């Protein structure tokens, strides 16, 4: 099935960026306002899904040469890894920590280990959602 939908493709080009930006924003803001790793990852995945729906799967795959299975596995590794990371500092498994730093340009910023954990969650969500949708849609 050859898709040739100019309007949808043009719109999707711009919208995809907006969604991606939203995803990053949601991911980063999750600590203090609505958002977080799961939602951020899901929004990111939906942007990708939009691209897959509008363009060919092949085309998008060429543009984003990422193996989403590996991405998901890496995410899980990151999440579980942060759990073990806390052991290295003598804290119980999965203890999270946070501190405030004065960074140039950003001013007083809170840096947390939970962000790494959430990044892992986000990557798993993106990887798994895209993997599932791609494998079902490619199965002909």
């Amino acid at each position, binding site marked *: 099935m050859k898709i040739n939908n100019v309007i949808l493709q043009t719109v999707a080009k711009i919208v995809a960026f907006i969604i991606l930006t939203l995803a990053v924003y949601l991911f980063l803001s999750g600590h203090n306002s609505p958002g977080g790793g799961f939602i951020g990852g899901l929004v990111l995945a939906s942007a990708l899904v939009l691209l897959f729906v509008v363009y060919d799967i092949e085309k998008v795959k060429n543009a984003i040469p990422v193996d989403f299975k590996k991405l998901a596995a890496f995410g899980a590794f990151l999440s579980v890894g942060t*759990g073990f990371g806390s052991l290295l500092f003598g804290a119980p498994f999965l203890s*999270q920590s946070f501190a405030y730093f004065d960074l140039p340009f950003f001013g007083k910023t809170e840096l947390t280990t939970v962000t790494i*954990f959430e990044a892992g969650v986000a990557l798993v969500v993106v990887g798994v959602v895209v993997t599932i*949708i791609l494998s079902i849609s490619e199965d002909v």
Partner: protein
Amino acid sequence: MSTLNIAIIFPFIAAIVIPFLYNKIRKLHIGWFAMLVSFVLFIYFARYVPRIANGETFANTINWIPSYGINFTAYLDGLSLILALLITGVGTLVILYSIFYLSSKESLGRFYTYLLFFMGAMLGVVLSDNIMVLYVFWELTSISSFLLIAFWYQRKRSRDGAKKSLLITVSGGFGMLIGFIMLYIMTGTWSIREIISMAGSFTDHALFIPAMLLLLLGAFTKSAQFPFHIWLPDAMEAPTPVSAYLHSATMVKAGIYLVARFTPIFGGESIWFWLVTGVGLLTLFWGSFSAVRQTDLKAMLAYSTVSQLGMIMSMFGIGSAALHFGNSTVSVVYTQATFAALFHLVNHSTFKGALFMVVGIVDHEVGTRDLRRLGGLVTLMPITFTIAMIGSFSMAGLPPFNGFLSKEMFFTAVLTIGEAGIFSLDTWGTLLPVIAWVASIFTFVYSMIIVFQTFFGPYKEERLEHPAHEPPVGMLIAPGILALLVIGIFFFPNVLGDYILTPAMMGIFPSLPAADLSVPISAWHGFRSMELWMTIGVIIFGFALYKTRKKWAFVYKLFPEKWSFNSFYSYSLEKLEEHSTTITNSYMTGYLRDYMVYIYLFFIVAIGGTIIYTGVYAFDISGNSSVSEFEWILVLVMIIAGISVLFAKSRLTAILLNSILGYGVATFFVIFRAPDLALTQIIVETVTTVLFLVAYYFLPEWKKEDVPRKSRNVNLIISISVGIVFTVIALTVQSGKLFESISGYFENSYELAGGKNIVNSILGDFRAFDTMLEVVVLLIAGIGVYSIIKLKAKKEDESVEDQ
């Protein structure tokens, strides 16, 4: 973090690194890296020897789950040290040997990953003080053993052997886990040291005997004791280095270690004494008796390992009697049996390791290990022959090899225990030396078979795969070192005794004075000693039986094959599969509708039943806030959408109506000020709609199903009941406060977790464990979908089971 904990984790880290190294470095055999890891650990543990010999012990704790008292505590005392030295020392030699044994065409990355994985798990077993952690490592050794036995997974026999070993050892492990939990119930601690310090105070507890039996079940299955020994011969399908390492030197000693470790707790009890000694002696006899009839060299060694393990086990049983007498000089006499057990533990690892490697060499060089085809190799493989002779003669209990010393001590132990006058030994005590002696004769016979059948007699080159010649020098180094140890220990046994064995005795008998536990080992007991005459008897009778073995081979036919434990195992496995297939087929109809009915029926019965049984369905809505018009409209829309789904004519309509429900719920989240949930719900709804549309393509035509009126009515009742149960749950969850409120955490999330968003503080911090596991589950689900869809075996694909 102490170096002891790192020493346990080190092999695991190395195991992770190996696949990457293997892909990068192709020129150098990856085994050298694994050997380096093992050797470094050996040196590390060897450095503890002087301090342990001084009576020091080392412990270090890393908190794992402190709220349950489960901590990763590494504890090193004399007993752990023996095992740790064996694991790393024999490990180094086995890896060295395997470098020459396995050709570079094999998937070496996998092999050494598993091997180091095993080494770490095994170190974990012997160095853990916390029994829960010990259990985890215990099962890890079973799993790595499974993977290593099935290393040549293309062969059916490898897979079957792996499955058998896993089934038997893991079931025993489960029993042991229950035993551990019982111990915890009795003592309130997971720490072995603390349990030992309480030993004796809980012997009257109702769970004391069950805990002991379950613990022994774990130990017996792991150490291949009768009747669980059947897995060990089948495990010989593994590559020979694995058999030498896991299935003779280390893993099968884990059960023995467990018995030794728990002797202070259960020792002195009559049941413990008789079970450990009795099963050990029975295994000793049965193993050596079965070994004689084997025609495969490796199978013969497997049965011989079974028998030797039984011998060590029985000595630990005899030694445990010492604790019956408490803190007196009488008891010291019986601790000698335990000393002999430890001594033989080390000796067995040296001579059996060497023998396994020799068999591997023979197999490798001439292509067969069938005794009927072998013969006359002595002139062609003189060095191999020398090592085989040293190993076999040591196993047979001949001087000047270390097996002689421990065999003599074994005879001493079975002779002295008859005089103890406890546990009704007056009646049965005389039987012990007899069984031990008869079993030793069989041991002598098969030891002779190994040497003489393989290396003497006519050389039949036409029956071999390759003409015989000496292996590369590298293959001879490891067995050579072990053979030197066999002789070295015979001449200087007390070095080993004083520095290694005596400290281990202190670990097993903490209540006895350390000075009495040291036993001088001597080769010569004088002409009047019974042990000497027993050994001479073994040699005479053994030689006679060896010469006439064809005449009495009919004895083995007295036991029909179908009465063996092996047939029992396969029979029960077969029946289990058969019956479970029948049961599964009876309800797995292939109709999604039926599966839904099962789920909902279970739901109604379990949840609805609980609600009625506990009587929580009374609820009060007077305190609820009023429902606004806007909310009424939303509810109405959702109800209409929900009902319309039933009457939808096309799939697309049904999907869209369904998503109205989802978005409606999202709107409710917005109204009730739950932005996180609303966001999630909206995106999930969007992505699922896409998923539906993708799957839509593959679905068959949507048509009315012809369902009989009766089942339609049943379905109606089920769906209404599900709806009622759900509504009642939603209303009643508010009604009672069963637990103390934990909202304090959430209110203070900014101080506790540095985040103002309490939802994410829960997800990422307070309940991060749940989130972590959910993420892993998600990943597994994704991989599952991918592999089911993508990796379907195509018709033209050849079967992987080629042998």
